């Protein structure tokens, strides 16, 4: 982000002027306006040239709207459901029931935690098997009660640790997929921040998959790909580019059904506007999906996933 420094300087100046106006009562509003316009312009210019690696940073931005705070902004009401009924409850993958517009829905979302203590408990938003098993429970509940399911995806990936393996994290993710793909209700996913690998797709393999403009969705982190394929961690920006992890690339690949624009500079600069845009997109897709008969919905979903990548595997004689 080459213009980053200019933007920072301008931001400081704007803040300074604003303070002077407010505190000292100085008449500098014209100067302020000029500076603000210039700042917006610079932001737009910088924003227009974001590299995929820049987007990875935005997707990970500590102030990016995500988790419970965002779900509460997007939905009209939310009631959290806890526990997998098998002995545990993972704070890194949460869910419940909510109203979205006029509709009751079931909701799943990754959580990174609001406080440092919560953040530790959420392991940076990397769920344990118990999280995915709670997700399966909530999916089944959604199926029983005919509630559409909305997934808010934001995880670096499932937790790579001994306790996760001891609890069969691979099987837990597979069970999520099997449940989600046969669920007799509309399913909708939106990638909010990081859509990291198996830990993300476990709740993202839906009838419709949306992405926020700067979100990423990838089979492996750019750092991981750099280490494995380039054999040097400094290749992460290149890897980010190569992996086609941006919303725009994935939209072109047909993996994503819609890209939701973010405020200039990124979602963290206006969480309320982001939530509002998200809400409208979700309401529109829900409306469409709700008009389908269950058999039709399942047939469309099956065809979508049965055929994914099929045109990328070309027939070769011999």
């Amino acid at each position: 982000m080459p213009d980053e420094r200019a933007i920072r300087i301008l931001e400081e100046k704007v803040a300074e002027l604003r303070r002077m106006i407010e505190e000292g009562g100085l008449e500098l509003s014209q100067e302020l306006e000029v500076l603000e316009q210039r700042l917006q312009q610079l932001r737009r210019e910088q924003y227009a040239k974001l590299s995929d690696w820049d987007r990875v940073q935005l997707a990970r931005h500590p102030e990016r709207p995500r988790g419970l705070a965002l779900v509460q902004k997007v939905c009209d009401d939310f009631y959290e459901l806890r526990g997998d009924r098998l002995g545990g409850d993972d704070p890194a993958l949460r869910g419940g029931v909510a109203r979205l517009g006029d509709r009751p829905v079931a909701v799943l979302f990754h959580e990174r935690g609001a406080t440092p203590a919560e953040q530790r408990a959420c392991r940076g938003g990397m769920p344990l098997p118990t999280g995915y098993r709670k997700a399966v429970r909530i999916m089944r509940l959604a199926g029983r009660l005919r509630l559409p399911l909305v997934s808010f995806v934001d995880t670096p990936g499932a937790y790579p640790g001994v306790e996760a393996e001891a609890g069969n994290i691979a099987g837990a993710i597979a069970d999520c997929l099997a449940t989600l793909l046969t669920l007799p209700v509309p399913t909708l996913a939106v990638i909010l921040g990081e859509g990291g690998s198996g830990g993300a797709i476990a709740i993202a393999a839906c009838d419709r998959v949306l992405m926020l403009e700067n979100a990423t969705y990838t089979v492996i982190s750019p750092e991981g790909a750099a280490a494995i394929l380039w054999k040097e961690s400094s290749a992460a920006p290149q890897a980010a580019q190569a992996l086609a992890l941006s919303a725009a690339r994935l939209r072109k690949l047909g993996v994503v059904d819609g890209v939701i624009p973010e405020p200039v500079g990124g979602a963290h600069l206006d969480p309320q506007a982001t939530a509002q845009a998200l809400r409208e997109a979700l309401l529109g897709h829900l409306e469409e999906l709700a008009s389908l008969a269950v058999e039709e919905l399942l047939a469309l979903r099956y065809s979508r996933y049965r055929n994914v990548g099929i045109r990328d595997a070309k027939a070769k004689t011999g």
Partner: protein
Amino acid sequence: MPIRRDSKERYVEVELRRGEETLWERCRACGELVFRRRLKENNYICPKCGAYFFLTAQERVVALIDEGTFQDLTLPLESTDPLSFSDRKPYRDRLREAQETTGLKDAVVVGRGKLAGHPVVLAVMEFRFIGGSMGTVVGEQLAHAMEQAVEAREPFLFVVASGGARVQEGVLSLLQMAKTVAVREQLARQGVPYIAVLTYPSTGGVMASLASLADFTLAEQGALIGFAGPRVIEQTTGQKLPPGFQRAQYALSHGVVDAVVPREGLKGELAHLLDILQGVPSA
């Protein structure tokens, strides 16, 4: 692929065999030279130290399927390199090299045949093909194999040897997890039995989808079974890995597999299971 020894499991060494046909092979576990024909007769288990050598997909087929009954159903597909991916080497070059080494278009062989007289449809992964990774071609071949099993009303046998999703096809590889699971649910709906055999390694995206959803799951002795690789876990968490971690016996005691079977017993074990299942699915 580093050589690993695990005191808890007798047959645990794993090696990559060279492609060339040589008379002798050096066992990387014990360092001894082994007569290649002897190795083959011994199920590619080192006669000196008991180490397991990797089997190619074709060797797996020979080891499991009755002679003369195998019919290759692998579709004539290869990857279009949908992302035009290149790291230090273009993906297209990697594909070509893997194709030359293995004689396959991608990392899986699909076919139909008899196992101890029982008809099965099978898919066998080839680890030498970019680590047995699953991209769009592997996903399509697995879907095709399961559809053949439904059509023939014969049990589906999946022999896993995969490190996970294919990085070079990005999210398209990730989505093969959903694809193979969706088709697996068709098997379930149709009452077609699905048996998985997990070998070294069965990890990553393949394990977090199709490979975890079998009706019956056998692990070859010494198999590595899990989601994240041991090195990733050590590096990310700083945790010390317990002895035997992610090995077949560990998977058994953690409820992930039904049995741990030494390589030489695998066909017999599958035959036993298929004997019992005779008549399933009913026509």
